[in-house]
């Protein structure tokens, strides 16, 4: 039907098109447009920059590095960091682009890049649990000398340095600059708590005043009091999602206040994970879920608990502080003007604890030495107290100890006092390279017991202890007997 000539031209066209597509696919994507220079910068400068870290940011005038790329999850703090990057560009001429990846794929993209030893980015604001893998795989730069010599290590709170920067625990070896401190806290409906009828009814039923809970037992009482399943209202909205780490983080908010731990100093889990404290805590969390969870939240994480709260389906909501700005915004929360916040209450013996969130900024080891130095320059600049104040002013959760204690910070957002308090008693899950294997065990077993109702709390914790011990032994973290 067609001549050879037509076939030939068609084939050439197809070949050219293929080449074009391949070139287009391989081409470096255009950098995301930077945001407009910050207009809110002025509000952040109120905190006086008294003592800056020992070393000021090096001048980049002679540096050949014109742009730094840092990957982080797609959320508001990443926007704030971009604003800080814009300030840095104004001061030094080096552009900073924050590559934002949705939370659902952030981990997979990061680990895929790590596997490929990719130098796609110069830095990553990575999860605290990734420290072990990043350090042992050689993907992260050892920042110990840099952070000690510049005084950066001394400028942040000890807990944040330990959990966001140090690996192995207690080694004083640092792989990340604590950037976004975060932990779980609670939001509550002040209008419900301060309602006179509610206060009277609560006092009659429980014998004490309705107020922000000061213990886990009170949290349970208040949750039960506000639960009305006929009306589709739950006393609480707590984490239940099996995917990744949600339900484990939720349980930790009961575990740590109850005095529980994940391991002892020698990484032993048997007798620690299935301790009476942990068993009681897991039973408590299941009871809280059974009695008082907002309807339909059997597969819930930060988005779902915020949604339940803003739609009036929950009187109290557990969430990371980083997601609380949405609750103070009248455009996203109809109860914004009457939303209050409190830190995770203590357990039966007065122990305090809350699940750690947040991330540290690490430098990728596979970029050139020049780019590593440019990243160190940026971190040095970013860690300066005056810039941490700006960071906090934008809405970032600073880990700088002086800024955290400043009145300006504490008054900047209604949840900041609770955040500052929580950051003194946060605890984290494992951060060794096989943390995900250990996490899979807890996720599966917690979901089975708490959501599906299989077995008992003791059976659940015994199973977790046995399975985690097996994994730790297989990988040499516990010496086999």
């Amino acid at each position, binding site marked *: 039907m067609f*001549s*050879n*000539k037509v*076939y*030939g031209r068609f*084939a*050439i066209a*197809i*070949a050219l098109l*293929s080449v074009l597509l391949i070139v287009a696919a391989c081409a470096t994507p255009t950098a995301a447009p930077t945001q407009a220079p910050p207009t809110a910068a002025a509000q952040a400068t109120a905190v006086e920059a008294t003592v800056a870290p020992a070393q000021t940011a090096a001048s980049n005038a002679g540096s050949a590095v014109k742009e730094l790329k840092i990957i982080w999850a797609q959320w508001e703090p990443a926007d704030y960091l971009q604003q800080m990057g814009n300030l840095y560009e104004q001061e030094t001429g080096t552009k900073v682009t924050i590559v934002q990846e949705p939370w659902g794929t952030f*981990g*997979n993209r990061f*680990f*895929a890049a*790590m*596997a490929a030893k990719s130098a796609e980015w110069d830095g990553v604001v990575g999860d605290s*649990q*990734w420290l072990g*893998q990043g350090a*042992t*795989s*050689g993907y992260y730069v050892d920042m110990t000398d840099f952070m000690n010599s510049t005084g950066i290590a001394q400028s942040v709170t000890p807990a944040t340095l330990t959990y966001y920067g140090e690996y192995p625990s207690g080694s004083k070896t640092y792989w990340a600059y604590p950037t976004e401190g975060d932990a779980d806290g609670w939001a509550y409906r002040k209008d419900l708590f301060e309602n006179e009828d509610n206060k009277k009814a609560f006092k009659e039923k429980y014998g004490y005043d309705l107020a922000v809970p000061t213990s886990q037992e009170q949290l349970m009482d208040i949750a039960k009091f506000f639960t009305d*399943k*006929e*009306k*589709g209202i739950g006393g609480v909205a707590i984490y*239940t*999602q*099996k*995917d*990744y780490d949600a339900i484990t983080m939720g349980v930790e908010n009961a575990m740590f206040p109850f005095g529980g731990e994940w391991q002892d100093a020698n990484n032993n889990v048997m007798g620690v994970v299935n301790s009476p404290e942990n068993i009681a805590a897991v039973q408590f969390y299941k009871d809280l879920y*059974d009695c008082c969870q*907002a*309807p*339909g*939240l*059997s*597969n819930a994480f930060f988005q779902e608990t915020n949604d339940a709260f803003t*739609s009036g*389906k929950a009187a109290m909501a557990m969430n990371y502080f980083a997601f609380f700005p949405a609750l103070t915004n009248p455009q996203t929360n109809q109860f914004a003007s009457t939303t209050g916040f409190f830190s995770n209450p203590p357990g039966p013996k007065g122990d305090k604890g809350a699940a750690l969130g947040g991330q540290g900024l690490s430098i990728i080891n596979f970029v050139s030495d020049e780019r590593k130095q440019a990243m160190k320059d940026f971190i040095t600049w970013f860690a300066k107290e005056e810039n941490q104040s700006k960071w906090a002013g934008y809405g970032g959760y600073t880990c700088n100890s002086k800024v955290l204690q400043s009145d300006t910070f504490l008054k900047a957002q209604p949840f900041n006092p609770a955040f500052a308090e929580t950051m003194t008693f946060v605890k984290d899950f494992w951060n060794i*390279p096989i*943390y*995900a*294997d250990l*996490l*899979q065990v807890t996720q*599966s077993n917690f*979901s*089975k*017991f708490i*959501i*599906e*109702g*299989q077995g008992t709390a003791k059976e659940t914790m015994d199973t977790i202890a046995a399975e985690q011990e097996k994994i730790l032994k297989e990988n040499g973290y516990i010496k086999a007997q």
Partner: protein
Amino acid sequence: MATVTAESSTSKPFVRVPTRRNQLSDRAVMNLFIWPTLILLIIFNFFPLFYSLYLSFTSYRATSPTAPVWVGIQNYTNILTDPDLWQAFTTSGRYVLFSVALQTVVGFGLALLVRGKFRGSGVVTTLILIPMMLSPVVVGLFWKLIYNPSFGFFNYAIPFINPAALDMIGSRFADIPVQYLALASVILVDVWMWSPFVMLLVLSGLNAIPDYLYEAAAIDRASSWFQFWRITVPQVMPLLLIAVLFRTIEALKSFDLVMGMTGGGPGNQTELIAVYLFRVAFQGQFRSGYASALAYIILIIVIAISNLYIRYLNQAKGEA
């Protein structure tokens, strides 16, 4: 036409003689098409296939700096003795069985329904096809909302129950755990989404049945039931089996719908084999060797089931 001169009418039409430069031989054209395809296949199919086969006999994590270590059939042994994995296989089996069976029945029913031409039948057929055109993740997220006990309308459509008491995805009724409720909720959505696909194939089979078969049966006073079982079903069977084959393979690999709706929970209730594989292969674990072995086991199962179907399909074709 009268103005056409004798010279012009008799002259040879202009034919541009192809030169060697702008003409490609058949072999060159063939090569232009075949080699890029072959190269892409080798890079993206054959290499990963054989490399993952090698990895399945090693202890290796993609995120680990250490090279793969040969462990023989250890991964396969571990997989086949892992109770969680057998549960995932069992869950997948239940999911495939109920999902495909219901899709076959519903799809066949819908095809019979829209087979007859009626006013607006084209629009109705198109509307029925919409679910299968949607992204499974989007469908999963939407149905998660639809199943919500407080504002989802699914519970309100069920008579004689308190809508707030039924939590399909949480697998609970009146705060009491009900086994398989979450799995049933996912199956229901899969049936809603993919029955139109079965309908489409069955419909093409129905339209291909010659009318004279029914006319002959009517002359012989065969009942409608008899006509259905002896004419309609055997004639449609080859296409129906193809639909069932496709759906079985797809259901065995089902991932995005479940992840969007339940994330494999509650517990392990909806943890299908593909979801389990995803967790092991990615989500921080990156147990590449173990995951490769599991992927090969799944591949063998899919091939075995497909062969069974194809054998039956050939038999059905012969009978038809």
